């Protein structure tokens, strides 16, 4: 009887201990909890880090080039939970510019707690915002905010969704003698008449779930591969394609860059 009591006490203790321990381990998702999700844009060229200016890269056509500008708008972001629920961020517009380090990290605020398995966004500015009142063109959407690094076409109202500029020996020299290429992708589909539409939606799986909790603010690390601009569904060669400033010509580039994004990993660190 004494042994049974001992076992009973131990069993009860273990049972109690398990309950206490599992309370600490139990991961409760409180729908009222919110935290931020950060998206880091890691711009690369193939397996190399993107460095603006003097670093030389090669595209799939063996053309050597440097990059002087790499900018793109990211908007209409949504995150999908493991249960299929989609959380949308319709009012967040980000302008990622390689030369502006701060812009390489986009922060989404007040993301409801949950396990997120999929990220979706538009490269560019959606058509509704593209024709909206000037009062809605604030922050990165302010057409007067870009200085000399224009991201808005004044002559054909609309934003430049992706800008890639650089220098390559295969490009014919311009008036100043520089062999520069400029690839500007825009075109939201037109306001009063149909025009080319280069808005592209990117949907990416998040392999390691992004777990938003009261005390966890995940950071998604995206790799953005410039090399894919030149090679994908379409082969873009700088020798022949080095000046794009109209939507129809930009379509093959937009089609290519749908493949340039990847969620490489997620940091789910506790705060």
């Amino acid at each position, binding site marked *: 009887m004494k042994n049974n009591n001992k076992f009973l006490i131990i069993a009860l203790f273990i049972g109690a201990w398990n309950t206490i321990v599992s309370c600490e381990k139990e991961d409760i998702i409180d729908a009222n909890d919110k935290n931020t999700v950060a998206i880091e844009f890691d711009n690369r060229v193939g397996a190399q880090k993107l460095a603006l200016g003097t670093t030389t890269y090669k595209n799939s056509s063996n053309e050597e080039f440097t990059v002087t500008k790499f900018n793109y708008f990211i908007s209409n972001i949504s995150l999908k939970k493991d249960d299929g629920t989609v959380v949308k961020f319709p009012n967040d517009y980000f302008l990622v510019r390689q030369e502006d380090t701060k812009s390489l990290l986009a922060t989404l605020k007040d993301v409801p707690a949950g396990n997120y398995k999929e990220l979706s966004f538009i490269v560019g500015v959606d058509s509704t915002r593209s*024709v909206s*009142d*000037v*009062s809605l*063109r*604030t922050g990165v959407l*302010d*057409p*007067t*905010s*870009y*200085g*000399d690094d*224009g991201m*808005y076409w*004044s*002559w*054909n*109202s609309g934003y430049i969704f992706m800008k890639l500029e650089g220098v390559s020996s295969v490009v014919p020299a311009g008036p100043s003698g520089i062999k520069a290429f400029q690839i500007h992708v825009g075109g939201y589909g*037109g*306001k*009063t*008449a*149909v*025009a*080319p539409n280069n808005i592209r939606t990117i949907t990416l799986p998040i392999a390691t779930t992004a777990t938003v909790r009261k005390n966890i603010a995940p950071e998604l690390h995206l790799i953005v591969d410039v090399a894919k601009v030149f090679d994908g569904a379409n082969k873009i060669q700088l020798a022949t394609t080095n000046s794009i400033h*109209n*939507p*129809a010509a930009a379509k093959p580039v937009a089609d290519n860059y749908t493949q340039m994004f990847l969620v490489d990993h997620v940091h789910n660190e506790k705060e």
Partner: protein
Amino acid sequence: MILVSACSTKEQAEPELLFAPPANFPKPIYDMTKNPITQDGFALGKALFYDPILSRDGTISCGECHRQDFGFTHHGHDISHGIDNLKGIRNSLALQNLAWQPDFFWDGGVGDLDFVPIAPIENPVEMDEKTGNVLEKLRKTTTYPTMFKKAFGTDDITSQRFLKALSQFMLSLVSANSRYDKYVRNEGVSLTTDELAGMNLFKQKCSSCHAGELFSDNSFRNNGLTIQGEKDEGRFRITENVADKYKFKVPSLRNISATKPYMHDGRFFSLDAVLDHYAGGVQNTPNLDEKLKENPQLGIPLSAQEKQQIIAFLQTLTDEEFLTNKRFSEN
């Protein structure tokens, strides 16, 4: 010492009609509720319109290519010369009745009046400036912060306020008091026999495109001009639809006597030349408008007398009040 304060009389506030849609016009397209015109907003917009600070080197203002006495077009220029005497490729369009236009420029590239100013400001052959830089310059003046405060409540000079102020001025440029207008509104003006004959001819032969009281159906058409000079492809530049090559906006014909020369590149220096084109000069270029293919000869058959009568009618579209109204003039 006695301090006498002047009796302050309460002024009879006459509600000044800042934007009065003419009785014979359709409803405006611009949403006036998003940018109601105020006296101070109008004054600020006008100041900006006539201020060459909008250009890189302080030489070109909007008023340079849009002169009131020429119906807010450039004086007699086929194409305009802008900064550094650089030339553009298109004829300066009349700034009148803009609230009734769905889009702007010869190719309709801008669909909202509020965004129009950015185009000439940033065009390298017009003002060659960055709009953001214009705002910086305005902030450093002694006058503009105060004007912005009067118009918008605080002295913050933002792109939204800058553009809306310019719109308030431009929207106010309403032209609806020509002899033609007073005639159709029965305001005691009669037209001559020739003018009336011209009006009837116009209704038959011209109003399918130059329609209604705004004298335009706002469409883009190819009216058979010889492809020459810049070989400007017009609307195609915006829609990139080959069916739109060589199509240009149908402009309003109001104040036509004041706005010569005519067409997108200003190639016709008289109304006679214009009507000679329609009667016998139409070319069968790609996308030529169907309406110009309805007769054995391309174009619109017009006798010499009919041409003169139509021209007489077109001259009734001149609105002297609009062309001389001091309210719109440079101070």
